[in-house]
């Protein structure tokens, strides 16, 4: 996986809900709104995984969603990053006693950055993006 110079300058993000309660979605929308304005760094939500560099995954993976999550992941072109937003994708969160889960997300996809919180604040999501950029820089330095 060779990183081009432009990759970590304008991360395009595809957001995928795998059974979340919509709390994390609201915080993601708050993150991309003008108050924090990540679009000045070229980060924006896109409508298709084929245009994306980063996959934001929220929610514990429900049984019906697991196969679709894998398909969306395969549609994202390489190189790509996966960020897990919210507690659900890491430990089940409020859905801890559900019978219908295939998660956590890292059982289904290789996750690069975890952002805990129920839901995480926009600052936490931005901090996660910074961590992802640091990881990219280490990748570039290793090449």
């Amino acid at each position, binding site marked *: *996986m060779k990183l081009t110079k432009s990759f970590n300058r304008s991360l395009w993000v595809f957001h995928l809900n795998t059974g979340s309660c919509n709390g994390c979605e609201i915080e993601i929308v708050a993150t991309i709104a003008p108050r924090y304005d990540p679009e000045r760094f070229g980060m924006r939500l896109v409508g298709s995984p084929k245009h994306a560099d980063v996959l934001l995954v929220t929610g*514990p993976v429900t*049984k*019906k969603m697991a196969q679709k999550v894998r398909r969306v992941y395969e549609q994202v072109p390489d190189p790509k990053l996966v960020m897990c937003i919210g507690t659900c994708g*890491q*430990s*089940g969160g409020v859905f*801890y*006693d*559900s*019978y*219908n*889960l*295939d*998660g*956590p997300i*890292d*059982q289904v996809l*290789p996750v690069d950055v975890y952002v805990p919180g129920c839901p995480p604040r926009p600052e936490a999501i931005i901090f996660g993006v910074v961590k992802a950029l*640091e*990881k990219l820089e*280490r*990748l570039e*330095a*290793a090449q």
Partner: protein
Amino acid sequence: MSETPHRTPQEIIDLYRTEFGAGILDARITERGEGVRKTKGCNIWIRLDKNLLKPAIKKLMDIRFPHFAVIAGNDLGDEIELLYILSVFYGTKFGEYMVTLAIRLKKTDLTVPTITDLIPGALLSEREKQEFFGITVTGIPDGRRLFLPDDFPQGVYPWRKDETGIKPEMVRELWTIGRPKDRPVPPVPEKKPAPEEPAAQGTQKTPGGAAE
């Protein structure tokens, strides 16, 4: 469609009582405040005999064609209660009432007639009640599962609170799973955690001191 006259909640209950008599087991009106000004709004709750469900919905269609919201359900132990939540006088400002028609099914006879011949949109909700409560909706045009996965075991009904409910071994406790161990080594090593700072700040705290 010819408009039928607008009626008060008490008039609706009186119409039901004259039509069905002893078949109405319970009928009451609750009031709630709508919006900031707390304008009065009404909910009508009618519990009736199981056989009267379809005539009751037909009666509501005579009053004014109802807006079907959802069928709710509840496991009461020996019985399963189905709540058909509808609203009449839809779109009338401060004159729209939620009408909840409740029936109770004994667990020895979990059948209920379909209402899709009257309200076709009730099909999805009836399919959901079939798979989650294990009831049988007689005459349903499409009895497949809706939400549950195809490989979900037969005879397990997630919303039941008795022995046919969710088995404890079906719950995967995600917090015990941890991070996967069988993945290839990442191309760059993980960053080492920062060395812990000496606890110089900790001595300034008074034991049991309240926040400022």
